[in-house]
């Protein structure tokens, strides 16, 4: 009997290697769990029935192009779109023998923090199905948390891996910009988008990051990546950990979240790290505003390709421009339209300098502040999300309230920094995530710190109601 709720990918791989379970049995166990729980949780948009690979199963967020398997990005405009090629990350998963279980739900075009913007209905949080799993990658996070996949891939622009991992009690890595290929990934904001692993443990995360990372000639923004080291140390000796005041005291951080993170920070000291406070005076105060200019600007450009000409939805009309405009209005949901409008406005004549140009300068300030902090520290820590999982419907009427969900994950993302979210406790019976931020290409340090903390914290990743 395979307990998918507790089985790590590392252990699954060992069982396969030792012939304790066959690839078919392993896949069947996840399929059974999916059949039992996905009706309630709606983690998956598409299920894959057969896969010739014989390794550990995996779920992929539905922005990741998979040859022959529908890829919708959660949007009605891509309903029925079946890629004719694999994204590089999907190809690397295949080459590593991973079996594809299916494609997971997300906010449309990865725009959102709850999956409620999905064109196909929201996913639910396995800890409490009246609450959101976070977003945009809520389907991947909920699937891993509920044992409907041993691990999964997400994509993170403003926090779409880290925040749902936090809300579902998973380990989520947003890798350094340029470490993982975006070839074949449905683009949101190209100076920010990164693909990364969602897992139950830090070691699983390092294993999956090792599979997907590295230079890809199909994505000229990728670079050579240092070899991944599987963490096993249980201490933090010699590590300098900074606690940025603004990231830990931001308005809107729930007391239960702050307390849980405070305990994890105390634990850092007990494990031998040198812990001290530091400041990011403008990164947090201006980060969200900077992000909500740069991201929509890039999104409005990236989403221009959905024009009803080459693939996917078309609404018929007598003239070409009418057809394009009608197709886009019918196919896009409210959030993509909002961001396309915002981005088009911010880039339009007369406003470019005041909005987009100024935001790019703020981005420089954010880089400089993090650079200064990393002269003193190896790792910075903060809550991942200011809140635990919120209720379905709570923020859908107020876009700005939803945007604030990413206030703590956005600043490091703007600087292309890697961030690892690990569960550090419960507040109101719901998981709290600790965000570990490092300099560019410091994934191994984050894995080391995350693993040591994970062992010391001993968080049970299985939702209480499913134990």
């Amino acid at each position, binding site marked *: 009997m395979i307990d998918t709720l507790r089985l790590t990918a590392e252990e699954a791989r060992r069982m396969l290697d030792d012939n304790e379970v066959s690839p078919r049995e392993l896949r069947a166990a996840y399929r059974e769990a999916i059949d039992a729980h996905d009706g309630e949780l709606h983690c998956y948009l598409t299920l894959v029935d057969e896969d010739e690979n014989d390794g550990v199963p995996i779920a992929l967020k539905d922005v990741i192009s998979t040859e022959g398997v529908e890829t919708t990005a959660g949007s009605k405009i891509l309903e029925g779109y*079946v890629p004719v090629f694999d994204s590089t990350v999907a190809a690397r998963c295949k080459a590593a023998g991973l079996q594809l279980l299916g494609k997971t739900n997300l906010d449309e075009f990865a725009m959102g923090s709850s999956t409620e913007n999905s064109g196909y209905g929201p996913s639910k949080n396995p800890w409490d199905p009246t609450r959101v799993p976070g977003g945009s990658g809520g389907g991947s996070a909920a699937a891993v948390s509920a044992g409907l996949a041993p691990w999964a891939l997400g994509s993170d622009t403003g926090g779409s891996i880290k925040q749902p991992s936090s809300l579902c009690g998973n380990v989520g890595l947003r890798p350094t910009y340029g470490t993982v290929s975006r070839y074949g990934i449905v683009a949101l904001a190209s100076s920010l988008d990164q693909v990364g692993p969602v897992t139950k443990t830090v070691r699983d995360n390092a294993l999956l990051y090792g599979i997907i990372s590295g230079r890809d000639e199909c994505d000229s923004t990728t670079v050579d990546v240092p070899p991944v080291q599987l963490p096993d140390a249980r201490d933090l000796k010699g590590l300098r950990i900074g606690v940025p005041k603004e990231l830990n005291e931001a308005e809107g951080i729930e007391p239960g979240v702050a307390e849980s993170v405070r305990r994890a920070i105390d634990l850092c000291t007990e494990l031998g790290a040198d812990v001290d406070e530091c400041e990011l005076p403008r990164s947090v105060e201006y980060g969200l505003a900077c992000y909500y200019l740069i991201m929509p600007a890039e999104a409005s450009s990236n989403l221009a390709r959905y024009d009803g000409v080459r693939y996917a939805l078309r609404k018929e009309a007598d003239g070409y421009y009418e057809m394009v405009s009608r197709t886009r209005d019918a196919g896009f949901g409210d959030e993509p339209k909002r961001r396309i409008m915002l981005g088009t406005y911010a880039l339009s004549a007369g406003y470019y300098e005041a909005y987009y140009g100024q935001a790019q300068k703020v981005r420089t300030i954010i880089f400089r502040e993090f650079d200064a902090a990393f002269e003193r520290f190896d790792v910075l820590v903060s809550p991942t999300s200011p809140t635990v999982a919120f209720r379905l419907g709570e923020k859908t009427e107020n876009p700005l309230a939803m945007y604030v969900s990413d206030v703590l994950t956005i600043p490091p993302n703007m600087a*292309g920094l890697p961030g690892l979210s690990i569960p550090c406790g419960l507040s109101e019976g719901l998981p709290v995530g600790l965000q570990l931020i490092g300099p560019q290409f410091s994934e191994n340090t984050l894995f080391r710190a995350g693993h040591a903390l994970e062992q010391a914290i001993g968080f049970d990743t299985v939702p209480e109601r499913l134990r």
Partner: protein
Amino acid sequence: MAIKRDDVLHVAALARLELTEDEITRLETQLNDILEAVGKVSELDLADVPPTSHPLAVVNVFRADEPRPSLPLEDVFANAPERDGDYFRVPPTGETEA
């Protein structure tokens, strides 16, 4: 109010979105709220700060300029809404732009 109804219509035309009357009204309010919030970036005096457009200091990635096979045409048209021989077929473009 930074954005008026006419601005919404102008931007929608630039973005090729045929918005419904409902959407126009809603977006006018929402875009003003969001712009007020993001307008915060103008508080900072950044005249001497250079802009950042890309997180990595990577420039000019070259590869050998060698011909490689492209996608087969059948694949290229696999998801096309309308095909005419080896072309994507669209409605007439002769009309004036919106």
